[in-house]
């Protein structure tokens, strides 16, 4: 799994290009509401998320790592519970 390291001329350039393309895509209005699909799903595929909202943007790799970290925090919680000998 290769991810682009933030920073660097090439990445910046790439990012700018991607942004341009993204903007282009965003401004393209589909011919009809129907064509856009109601939320991006198709006849046999259920999609929840397709557009990028202007929110708190996170890198997918960061999310994957945080998700694993979250599970380990629960493991830690088990350990604390066992060591302290009570179940809160």
């Amino acid at each position, binding site marked *: 799994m290769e991810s682009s390291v933030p920073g660097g001329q090439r990445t910046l350039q790439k990012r700018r290009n991607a942004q341009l393309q993204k903007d282009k895509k965003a401004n393209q209005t589909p011919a009809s509401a129907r064509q856009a699909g109601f939320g991006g799903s198709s006849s046999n595929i259920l999609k929840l998320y397709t557009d990028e909202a202007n929110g708190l943007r996170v890198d997918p790799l960061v999310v994957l790592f945080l998700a694993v970290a979250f599970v380990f925090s629960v*493991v830690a919680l*088990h*350990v604390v519970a*066992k060591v302290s000998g009570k179940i809160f």
Partner: protein
Amino acid sequence: MAKKNPQFEKLVETPLEFVKEGNQFLQKCKKPSKQEYLKIIQAVGIGFVAVGVIGYIIKLIHIPIRYLIV
């Protein structure tokens, strides 16, 4: 005929028509041949087991952790 409740009639007719239409459609359909089907089953089976084994390895990681903490 005319005295029958039209709503009731519809209630009986709709499923019947549904089955009829469905049957007609099914008859027009192309079913996979035996050879084709065996190939599909094989591919899906291998894929399912392969992915399942990878997933199972993750589950195996859980066992020692559970043993230590629970």
